[in-house]
């Protein structure tokens, strides 16, 4: 049962969830207009500093970023080949900054606060009778909650196969992953039902 949230009482934890998500959305959009590797490096370092302020260790940040390294290498390599070194550097720095910024928000914002923001954002649509904001927020929260758990499940299945001397392949991993995910969804639905 993994989770990105790091409990704490830093100023980043105490900042309102709506403000953090708003800054993340606006900052991410603004980054698309920045085409200077120097400025992008400064932005990336600022986000790294905020991860440090949030109380995250280097190891914790690395654990979250590790799955992204291959993607960055492949995209960076393709970008060097097609557009040149500077553009590739720009793209990698932008992507890294975006992911790190999202990670900092996830590490410092409890899921229930994020769900409250969703309820607030959907308020007008609920007023019009188009959506049930609480249900959408719960679905959003559970999705966020289950993303890290998929990684843990993947690791468990992989270890179980390696322990039996099998070489994990997409097919042998995919089928048990699908079945486990469906079973987990049933378990969570049952847990929610049980609470009335």
């Amino acid at each position, binding site marked *: 049962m993994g989770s990105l949230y790091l409990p704490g009482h830093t100023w980043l934890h105490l900042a309102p969830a709506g403000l953090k998500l708003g800054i993340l959305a606006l900052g991410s959009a603004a980054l698309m207009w920045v085409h200077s590797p120097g400025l992008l490096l400064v932005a990336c370092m600022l986000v790294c500093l905020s991860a440090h302020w949030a109380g995250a260790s280097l190891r914790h940040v690395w654990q979250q970023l590790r799955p992204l390294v291959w993607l960055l290498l492949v995209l960076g390599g393709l970008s060097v080949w097609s557009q040149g070194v500077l553009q590739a550097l720009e793209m990698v720095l932008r992507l890294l900054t975006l992911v790190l910024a999202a990670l900092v928000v996830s590490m410092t914002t409890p899921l229930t606060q994020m769900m409250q923001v969703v309820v607030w954002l959907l308020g007008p649509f609920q007023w019009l009778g188009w959506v049930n904001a609480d249900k959408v927020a719960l679905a959003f929260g559970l999705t966020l909650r289950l993303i890290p758990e998929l990684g843990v499940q993947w690791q468990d299945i992989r270890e179980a196969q390696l322990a039996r001397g099998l070489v994990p392949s997409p097919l042998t991993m995919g089928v048990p992953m699908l079945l486990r995910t469906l079973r987990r969804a049933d378990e969570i639905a049952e*847990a929610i039902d*049980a609470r009335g």
Partner: protein
Amino acid sequence: MLIEFKNVFVERERRLVLTDLSLTLSERRIGVIGPNGSGKSSFARLINGLLLPKTGQVCVDGLDTAQDVTAVRRKVGFVFQNPDNQIVFPVVHEDIEFGLKQRESDAKRRAMRAQAALERLGVGHLSERSVHTLSGGERQLVALAAVLATEPEILVFDEPTTQLDLRLRNRFEQHLAGLPQPALVVSHDLALMRQMNRVLVIDQGRLAFDGAPAAALDWYRAHCS
């Protein structure tokens, strides 16, 4: 508390798992034992409306689990065998407060009730912790606190001591003894069953024995070992 089973048949995945159950439960502590796959967990799930009978009727204090499922679930707290199945949110206090959302609209009061439930079990210090950093025993206590916070009138435990070491198991037994609510406990823990007022033995989907703990345990050892 009055739980009534009237000619209940239960089917799961096209297999009959409980057959012709008719009984009334009103004791303060009721134990349920039986071999693996005998239908014990299905029996417990019927009381909370998590499972509905194929035919027959289950009533909790006069409420039919098929007709008044929401009211029944608010009355009956269910503690799952595996706390990971029960804990939905990643931080302890978030999870407990989530269960209170339908019962308590004020966020501060929800937080106070969640903290009080944790304190009651001696795990108030876990409130801010991420669930994935807790031990199996701590998770079990958090799952119990999440149910107790909702102040149910009846408690159903599905194999509550399976993941606990001896110290935590004894602590659970003490907590159980101190709970004011009537409780039904499904377990393989025979020592725990001795503390019950009435013990049901379920075997191959049928109520095989129903009586006092000593007699029920003797019957269980003689017929199911």
